[in-house]
């Protein structure tokens, strides 16, 4: 599961964990890339599991030639001990039949590592919004009961909107309400498993559609920053995030000149 990068064991006790859910637009993953790149976090371990599709490549956060050739895998953990922050980046989809297993694995790792709180960055299909959700902010949050004990009503006081539930049987009045996060991937699984295991966990998500999701990642991250203050921002301005080297050519190679 978690394999430390160096021989010295890492302790995450009391740290905050930020992780993405593989969701529409890959917004959570893009936001996590920005965090690791801006805060210059160093890799402390890998999540080695059969639940994710394998992938390898050179260092996506390379800043100079010397660190460009560190091999990177599909799920890595980065840490910033000064900020007591750990970040998990997941770079490939969860194998379809292993979604439940992955959630259980994550929840047991979070519990065993002793993170004081976990933040899951996610997204949901914008086209599934109801009339009310079409107005106002596209950002939502969810917190487990254990998290409620830690933060209290802090998020509500910051004018954050809680994710609305939907009716189990649409059109039928008085039917049960249930949590529905279309396009959220494993978000709901992680959230419900964390509730069951008493894990302090918050989901922060944005409604979006597939396309160029970089602006959505910035919106989500700036919103998160108003709570966690990962990066200092002077009043009335947005914080500056560093775009990693791996974000080049997101939409394909250079165009052959002969095409025109």
């Amino acid at each position, binding site marked *: 599961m978690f394999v430390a990068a160096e021989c010295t064991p890492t302790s995450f006790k009391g740290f905050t964990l930020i992780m993405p859910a593989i969701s529409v637009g890959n917004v959570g993953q893009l936001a996590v890339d920005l965090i690791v790149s801006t805060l210059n976090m160093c890799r402390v371990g890998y999540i080695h599991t059969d639940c994710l*599709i394998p992938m390898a490549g050179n260092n996506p956060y390379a800043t100079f030639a010397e660190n460009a050739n560190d091999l990177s895998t599909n799920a890595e953990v980065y840490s910033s001990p000064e900020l007591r922050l750990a970040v998990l980046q997941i770079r490939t*989809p969860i194998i379809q039949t292993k979604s439940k297993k992955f959630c259980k694995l994550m929840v047991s790792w979070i519990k065993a590592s002793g993170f004081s709180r976990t933040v899951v960055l996610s997204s949901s299909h914008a086209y599934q919004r109801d009339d009310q959700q079409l107005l106002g902010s596209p950002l939502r949050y969810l917190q487990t009961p254990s998290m409620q004990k830690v933060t209290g009503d802090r998020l509500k006081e910051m004018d954050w909107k809680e994710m609305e539930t939907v009716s189990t049987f649409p059109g039928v009045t008085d039917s049960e309400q249930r949590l529905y996060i279309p396009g959220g991937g494993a978000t709901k699984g992680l959230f419900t498993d964390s509730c069951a295991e008493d894990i302090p966990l918050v989901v922060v998500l944005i409604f979006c559609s597939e396309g160029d999701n970089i602006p959505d990642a910035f919106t989500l991250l700036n919103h998160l920053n108003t709570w966690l203050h990962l990066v200092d921002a002077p009043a009335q301005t947005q914080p500056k995030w560093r775009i990693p080297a791996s974000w080049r050519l997101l939409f394909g*190679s250079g*165009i052959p000149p002969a095409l025109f």
Partner: protein
Amino acid sequence: MATFFGEVLSVYSRAVEEDDDDLDDENEDERIHREIEEKREVHIVWCPEVAQSLEDSGSNKLQCSDLIIAVGTNAAGFLSAYVLNTESWDAVGHVSLWNERSRGSSRQSIAPLPGEPACLFYRHRDNPAVLVCQSTCYIAEDQLFQWTEKVFGCLQKRGLSVMVLSDSPVAEYKTPDYLYGSAVPFLRSLKSSASKGQALCPALEQPNILTGLPAAVLSHCQVHQIPAVLYQCYTDVISPDSITMETFKPALLCLSKLVKLEPCLSADVLRKFAIITEAQSNLYT
């Protein structure tokens, strides 16, 4: 999302599938899932001699100093021509697996026939610590991790070094400048952090990534701190091709330290390993 004519289309997402929500399995579904999982299991079938060595070793692991894996028809063809052609290699095993692209509806109980897509192991007669694996069959995404764990589970980790040769279509190579014909085929390399030597060609630049078996092997080596180097050849030819195979030649420098090689091959020999695709779809015959 609704279109102008009023019909509703489901929106395709590159990240998530439509039915990712609620997967409440019934008992019957669980049984079916388990049966499918068993059918898709990866098994390694060793020859009796090697199976005996594994048993005798106590830890159920083989001594292996170098593992060379070729993934894809061109990489496998290169190894066949330059390395395995010297007739000092014994076939010692194969990987038995089944997936949707395999022929037949279930796992084959017999060894693969020559020419069939397969995953074969060879061991050098004079230096039995050197193993070669040629993988030309399709290994599904959910089988890659298992393949890697099972193969490396048979090998002693101490003193092990891995080299992977693989081919990939140049269409998957991302570069800001358009690649003209003469630049292709070309080699790029990737190394695990434990690998200290110099690679013999430029490193694979971001944002390019590896997927499939080469990625699974390299990830395993990275996580378990095994020195590993990969040479990936980007080519514009789909079928096995002698020019693409020759592009792997820089890897011979490392291999020649381990085993005796055929240094110079005539074009005829190479052509033997490159299948010439015939024009199959001819409407008029």
